[in-house]
């Protein structure tokens, strides 16, 4: 039976994780993500899972990778300084192709910054936070319902592509209460073990066409060696060979880049004839739609593109919109991060305008409407 509840965003995230099959959580208290850990500590024992409060965020990120290799879907949640501490192990998750989910409830930064206030200033860290070349998947929810839905989606993407997936939420969504509809059942991507022919040598990193190899659990008898060193198809370290390294890292990137059309998710509203497009992700979208509707009433041809997956960035969709649109507006709770991506894709054909806002308070519809009007009036000049 479909269940309706009135819950905190962070609680919705925990409920989503349980629905997706998460049965291990390791975390460390940090504002404004702590309620996720608290809810998981209540829910996991009731669902056959385990919760461990670790000694720090580095350990939390390590523990969920270990748990994932034990054959259990696993997650951690953190904010600000915590996500910085997790970066090295996120890179380990990338090179070892370990499915894990990391929730980042973004807060005002740098450093300890504004623990109780919202921001979207970790977006570039989500992309490039760990050292090295890699591609990442990140989802940004704009409502309590989306925090639930996107957490499930994050688990499914993590399993499908064998990657760490980040849910880049923020304090507004994490600490808001809204109606949550919990469906009867949710679609789950389950892990699939490798299948070997009689006498076939097991090559844990010999990837098929789509770049993703099946993954066994420890104890399944495959005797897999998992290492953060550059490794060959057998999983053995091979750190001095340029070809081995190139093949490995390119495959890790390609399995995301070449499947971008399947991973990217977004929502277009009023875009058909739009000359101005407001591009948003996460919380600011909440103010965008009101502003767009009001501007439409005043006769401005404006639309909204709401990006669910900031990473990988939906280049193709934006290029398509740029065929008609002359101006793009991006409200972000930072001084300009994803706007550089927008600039990269649309900058040649259109003008890109940032509404950067920091301090922890969400953009108001009026602020966005004002910018739409300003851009529209300049177009007339």
């Amino acid at each position: 039976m479909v269940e309706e509840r009135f819950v905190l965003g962070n609680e919705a995230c925990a409920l989503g994780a349980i629905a997706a099959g998460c049965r291990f959580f390791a975390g460390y208290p940090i504002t404004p993500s702590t309620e996720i850990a608290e809810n998981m500590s209540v829910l996991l024992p009731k669902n056959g899972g385990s919760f461990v409060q670790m000694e720090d965020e580095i350990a939390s990120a390590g523990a969920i990778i270990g748990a994932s290799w034990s054959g259990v879907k696993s997650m951690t949640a953190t904010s600000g300084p915590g996500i910085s501490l997790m970066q090295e192990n996120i890179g380990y998750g990338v090179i070892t192709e370990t499915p894990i989910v990391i929730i980042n409830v973004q807060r005002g930064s740098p450093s300890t910054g504004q623990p109780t206030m919202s921001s979207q200033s970790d977006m570039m860290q989500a992309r490039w936070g760990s050292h090295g070349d890699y591609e990442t998947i990140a989802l940004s929810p704009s409502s309590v319902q989306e925090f639930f839905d996107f957490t499930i989606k994050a688990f499914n993407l993590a399993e499908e592509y064998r990657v760490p997936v980040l849910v880049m939420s923020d304090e507004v969504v994490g600490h808001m209460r809204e109606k949550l509809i919990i469906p009867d059942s949710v679609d789950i991507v389950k892990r699939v073990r490798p299948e070997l022919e009689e006498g076939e040598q097991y090559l844990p990193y010999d990837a098929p066409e789509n770049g993703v190899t099946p993954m066994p659990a420890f104890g399944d008898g495959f005797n897999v060696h998992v290492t953060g060193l550059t490794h060959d198809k057998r999983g053995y370290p091979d750190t001095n060979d340029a070809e081995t390294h190139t093949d490995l890292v390119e495959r890790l990137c390609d399995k995301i880049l070449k499947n971008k059309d399947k991973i990217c998710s977004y929502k277009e509203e009023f875009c058909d004839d739009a000359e101005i497009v407001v591009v948003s992700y996460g919380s600011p979208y909440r103010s965008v739609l009101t502003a767009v509707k009001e501007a439409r009433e005043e006769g401005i041809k404006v639309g909204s593109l709401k990006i669910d997956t900031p990473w990988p960035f939906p280049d193709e969709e934006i290029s398509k919109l740029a065929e008609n649109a002359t101006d793009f507006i991006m409200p972000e709770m930072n001084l300009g991060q994803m706007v550089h991506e927008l600039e990269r894709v649309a900058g040649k054909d259109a003008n890109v305008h940032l509404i950067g806002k920091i301090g922890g308070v969400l953009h108001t519809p009026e602020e966005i409407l004002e910018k739409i009007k300003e851009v529209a009036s300049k177009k007339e000049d």
Partner: protein
Amino acid sequence: MAVKENPYKKYLREDRLPHIFCPGCGNGIVMNAFFKGLEGSDVDFDNVSMVSGIGCSSRIPGYVKCDSLHTTHGRALSFATGLKVGNPNQDVVVFTGDGDAASIGGNHLIHAARRNIDLTVICINNNIYGMTGGQISPTSPKGSFGTTAPYGSRDVPFDLASLVTAAGASYVARWTTAHPMQLAKAITKGLENKGFSFIEAVSQCPTYYGRKNKLKTPVLGMDYLKANSVTKRRSEKMSEEELIGKIIVGEFANRPHKELCDNEEDLVNENYDGGLAIKSAFWEEF
């Protein structure tokens, strides 16, 4: 007829031999002692998963024919915690070194010991950073030389076995590579202890520690370890002054008490009828 080869070779990935360790490195001896300890225990080799961090000793699991996780520097115990709690049916063995366990991973070490999680940790303490070329470590004896202590170390080193005992581990022992039989026996006890077991194996590093500290050959290094070892019992009758430069060997703790995974499982059984969701990532639905 049995194969005429070293009795411990059968546990290794033959296609990776010889291993990367320098001639006379103690890692190989500790590895043998581990296999001997395993044979003497009730633990089945097929049920063993290994975890390690970064450093020479952390390369050991990669040579063993079992599932192994070679992780980030210092963090082996964090990964091992997730691996063990996720599926408590496995016997999880961690190989680590003095730099990995006591310096960058010091916090994880004391917390894993505090939780008394059922892991067997074998810490090869060679008093130096070998992989990076001979820098001093938190266990380098006062006055010893390293590439980052050209005038001799002035710091007081960690006494690892005592540190882990104080942090709450249920089984702790220390031996050296010059005592392989005793080391193997301690590893047997550590494997059979249901809780956090820490076995410190003091080892020679001829290439770096030895070269810098007048113990250039493996034999000199092992002779030094043997000559300067004092049993726990004998050490209790010695003065602090007499114990300077000595390696106290023997059992430091053997006090079984309830471990983390048992507590986790109890919590599930008190709240849920379905038991632990072991390997549930492979389930169709929940």
